């Protein structure tokens, strides 16, 4: 199974900090571990934010259908700070 360029790019996002907004407006910030065809995403060392309320939730799986927004750490932009 050879990776298409897009999948290759997706693969490069693994292990990066990722921010996902779920359908109930909670934001999950964790490390991108795994994804499947249905956009089910697994994050590790995740923190959950609901407004100002924050808690640690660890390893979570966010089902694709509940993802409204997904963001990944932009290494190119982050580099500007170094």
């Amino acid at each position, binding site marked *: 199974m050879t990776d298409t360029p897009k*999948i290759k790019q997706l*693969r490069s996002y693994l292990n990066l900090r990722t921010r996902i907004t779920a359908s*109930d407006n909670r934001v999950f910030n964790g490390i991108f571990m795994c*994804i499947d065809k249905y956009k089910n995403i*697994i994050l590790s060392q995740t923190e959950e934010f609901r407004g100002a309320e924050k808690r640690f939730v660890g390893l979570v*799986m966010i089902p694709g259908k509940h993802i409204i927004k997904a963001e990944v750490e*932009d290494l190119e*932009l982050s580099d500007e700070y170094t």
Partner: protein
Amino acid sequence: MTSPSDLPSKDDLVKKTQVALSKLNLTVDQTEESTEHSNSLLLPQYKDITKFLDEATDEFEIGQLVHLESFGLYDAMSSIEIMDPKMDSGMILDSDLNKPPFNLRARLKPKEVLGIIDHLFNCEMTWHSGHSLSQTIFTCMYFHHVSELNQELFINDPNDDSTDSDSPIEFVILVLKSYVFGTIKCCHLVWDEMTKGNVYEEEDFSTNKYGISMYENFPDSQCIKLIEDAETWMEQHGCKWIREKGQHDCENVIRAILSRLHLRKSFLLVLMHMSQSRCQQYLQAQRHLNTSMQLLNGIKEGANVSLSLGVDVSGAFDPLINRKLVSQTPPRPIRLLTMQESINEMMNMLKSINATCEIINYKSATSLMNFLVYHASQQPSPCAFSRSILQSTICTENRILGKMSMFQLIKDSVTELTNPPYIYFASKIDIATSPKDDLIDENKSEISKLVHNFVDSTVKPLTDLYRILCHNRSRQRRNMCKVLTDWDLLQEEAEHIDTKLQSLTNEEPLITEEGPSYSFHLSSWVYHRKLVLLEDILFLGFELDLYGTHEYMMIYWYIDYLLGVHYQHLERTHMHVTENKKSKKQQENLRLAPPPTSTVSLLVSQRLMIIAKQDICRGIHRTISALRKTGHAIFPRLEFDDESTRFWHRFRMYRTLGSPTILSYKDFKDMTQFDNITAMDLFNVSLQNFQAARSSIEKLLAMKPSELRMDFCHADFTKELQAMLRVCIANIVSLHKIIEECKENEIVTSHKQQKQKQRQKNKKSLTSSSVTPSSSSIQTQKLTSLRKDNKVANFEFKYHPWYPVITLK
């Protein structure tokens, strides 16, 4: 798993920010604001990939995953699914949205205060029964805000539109506050005890505080004062106000609130006294225990009136707090105990603590041990807190009951059973001041040294044993199996020491038919304890439901054997105890031990107990063999295991022991074959066994508590004997019935049985001598077909958890 590349960048960033800040010459403390500010700088820049994800995943093949090499399917499975109400504790459910908000400033009515008090009590007892704090006590909103419950809270409230007809704020700032504080202090004292590590964390009890303070700095004494203030206020003003309101049940409400305050105070006092070191204040604790029990009984008796008086307050208890504290586990709703269950739970706890206070009045080592044995077997089993307290009482910092040394306890324990010569355990001062006698004097220090060696080696196994008896029932058996080898080694060591002591004291052996017999005082005691362990491990298997019905026969047969060994051992000890008395009269220089009447009576009672148990076990396994003959006891066809493997497995931990001799499966088969005996004869023999057991038990029932060394647990002991008696009687009745029924079928059965036997004999001569399991199962199959009726043997442990009543059903 952070990528290493961006770590230094962050560090640099922090430095740069700090430099920048210092340049600006801002005197900003490390406050929330500044850290937040720098945090926002530290946060990585994100780019939106929502759309990209859609496109990329479209190119996925079915079942394809993109994942880190280190991340496997197993890891994936352990993740928590977001937006699944069963897993996701952070989800807001519809039911949560409709929940009314909690108002700390609410002026609670007396009944509402009562409602909170009762709910909090249920939470407390549910915690005691093993649930986590986060799902019990911590759900109470007043718990988290108790220190804010002051007058100012109400005075400065701009929204307070209260009128004079509203309830006085004292119901909240005094009555409720003092009760909640009292509960917190009680919980804290219990928590302190539970963290000593006497019981199994997460198995018996949960002590995780999730970083929430239990107001450790608020002194207990101040809490007592607060409750007393509340009591005074209630009596002087609260009552009046409630009465003026003039509801029909006002007197009940007053009584209910007051009794709960009183109970909280005395329970707190109990815990405070119990927590003092070296059991110094158990007497005071007992006084308050009695008060607590009376009050609790009062609440229980008025249960139908007072328990339904409380009114729920919306928002006062929030089970969702659990989500914030335990975020990484799926929510598991629990059921709180009801008021009635909580009262019972507390009653059992108080009774158990009271019994613990009693044992401070030490009578003898054996009675202490017996107390523990019966305490451990209580149903319902004692709560974790009382078991922990008991352990702390018995042994803390090598002090027994806060006052005795281990040496004294071991000395008493050995002396009560085998009555060794006085010189063995004589203290050093005694040795120094005793009249000079050259021959003995040399040996004295040597003897003392040897005995001390023995004591040193005994300390650990014995304290372990005490601890085990304070564990939960399943743990008891498990840990008993673990310490077996310790006791076996100790026995070996004790035998060596005994042999040396024999020559040092010039002990003259008793001449018996089997040759000279030495007393072996120390190792006899060890062997006795070890045999008790061996028996109890097997017996506990019945209580814990570990055996299949088809195994009962071999287990009871094995216990029968162990009890037989034990009986002989005690008989031997008895002989030495009584004989030594005579011989020692001649050797006055060894100093005469106090007349061992107590030892003799203990040995007599122990032997009676053993013989009673043995008769019951023998009756049971013989009845089962007879029922196998008649075909009533069905033996399952085992495909993947056979009886001999099972036999080996069941008694494997006994295999490594030096004594008693392990019996093999062949022994079992040979001794339970009963080929030449008819089922009817076996039934009759069993009947005799049960009758013999009955008469032994009746003899035991007539003995005095002090003779039996049952000073602290005579009621429980009598209860057990009566249960055993019931087992015997029920089995006798049932056996008569079985015999009756068998006689009716006898003509047919006996005819067929003879044929069967003939066939068996033929088969035996043909096949090899060993009984293979397959042939035995064929045998049972054939026997089953012999049965006329469709009845099956039925085992009911209805009177005693160790001995069943066997009936045909």
